[in-house]
């Protein structure tokens, strides 16, 4: 119990696993896999919702609708991870594109591993070109997870 408490406080582990998601979509199977990796590595999970800001707005413009999409998703990830005893340290980041937002994120913080969902059919989320970029530019070990196409996809959690 003590171990669990310490991990919930976020002070018991130092490895950080980033799981970025965008365009209002996070696949549940990918999340489950990220949680399994975090548990195996005794790491903190950092779910990061990447908000795409159109050029006509400043990068720190108040994108209220996007925040409204992001917050329940982050809450859902936090709940799912905390239930498994995994410490969570969520983020929201903005950028012109998902890759721009990711760059801003890892410029500010260190991550030991990045777990990214691959595109699944017509679901929103990362696009193949963005994943290609990620593989050549990410500063940490990167895992791209392809969700099981036979499973139902969850694109928002209320």
């Amino acid at each position, binding site marked *: 119990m003590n171990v669990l408490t310490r991990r919930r406080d976020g002070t018991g582990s130092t490895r950080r696993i980033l799981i970025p998601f965008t365009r209002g979509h996070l696949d549940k199977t990918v999340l489950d896999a990220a949680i399994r990796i975090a548990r195996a590595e005794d790491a903190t999970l950092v779910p990061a919702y990447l908000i795409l800001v159109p050029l006509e707005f400043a990068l720190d413009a108040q994108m209220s609708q996007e*925040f409204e999409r992001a917050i329940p998703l982050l*809450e859902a990830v936090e709940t799912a991870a905390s239930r498994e005893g995994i410490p969570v340290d969520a983020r929201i980041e903005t950028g012109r594109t998902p890759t721009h937002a990711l760059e801003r994120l890892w410029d500010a913080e260190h991550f030991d591993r990045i777990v990214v969902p691959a595109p699944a059919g017509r679901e929103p989320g990362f696009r193949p070109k963005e994943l290609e970029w990620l593989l050549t530019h990410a500063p940490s070990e990167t895992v791209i997870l392809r969700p099981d196409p036979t499973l139902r996809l969850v694109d928002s959690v209320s």
Partner: protein
Amino acid sequence: MAPGVGKTYRMLQEGQQALKDGRDVVIGYLEPHDRPETSALATGLEVVPRLRTTHGGLELDEMDTDSVIRRKPALALVDELAHTNTTGMRNAKRYEDIDEILDAGIDVISTVNVQHLESLNDAIFEVTGVRVRETFPDRILDEADQVVVVDLTPEELRDRLRAGKVYPGERAEVALDNFFRQENLASLRELVLREVAEDVEARRQTQSLEPLVQQAVAERVLALVEPQPKSQRILRRAWRSAQRLDAEIDAIWVRSGDHQPTEEELTQLAALRRVASLLGIHFLEVPGDDLVDTVRKVARERGSTYIFVGTPDERRRTEILRGSLLSRMVRELPGIDIRVIADRALREEAEE
């Protein structure tokens, strides 16, 4: 209205007048644009030295917000409200620096061009073909006590450009053929006049409300955070509630006097400041050895009506000696709603 119409000049005129009236006036930041008349008008006004920063090998000057606040004048003149600060400054935008100065009880006169107003961004693009990157939120205009339009006819402004009073020679020629085309300036002028007319109408309607009624219904949220991951959740929940209440929101970290943040805490603080900035939350770092006492003072100063706090992580000994944090808050913060943000995963765990 647009570059070169004389906004900085007008701001300095107001500053000189305030000085004559006996007010304590300083220049927080001035962009003289190499215009001799503008520089001359600044004579006699105390200037708070700028902060020298370096970015990408370049040395850049920014407003030294802390020095302005420490100097505590009655009025600060701060040029270029829409300016984006150098990376690494506490605030990304100058209007956030201005918010801090206003929060310290200092009046501010600032300058801005209409094309930087966020809600007009599309309209500006349509009429000028120029997509303005540096924008500022409309609330800044809404919150201003007064908005003064520095108006100049397009012909006069183009004459000023030709005379080299706005940009030097070659740059002026390019500007005349692009952004400063007669039709662009006419459209910008129309936009700004319409915007201010709407602002005047909105103020007239707001002022007709009984001030006491406004005070009674206005909500202001205060989120108590610590440099810990769980504070991200507190900020998010507080923001959602503030959205529903149409309320302003502050976040506060009470740093005990002798506490030096660890590296991990500094990372967490930076992340909290970042999300606060994105969500439009005013982030306050206040020293204090007694959390409840400090929060009580800040809540009174900010007019907070609703406090968000995480589940306290207290030592039993402290609870016995001083009473639990929550019971002290309820006792010592009368008239303020308090909401404890719990970890929902714990609820499910308890049910199992």
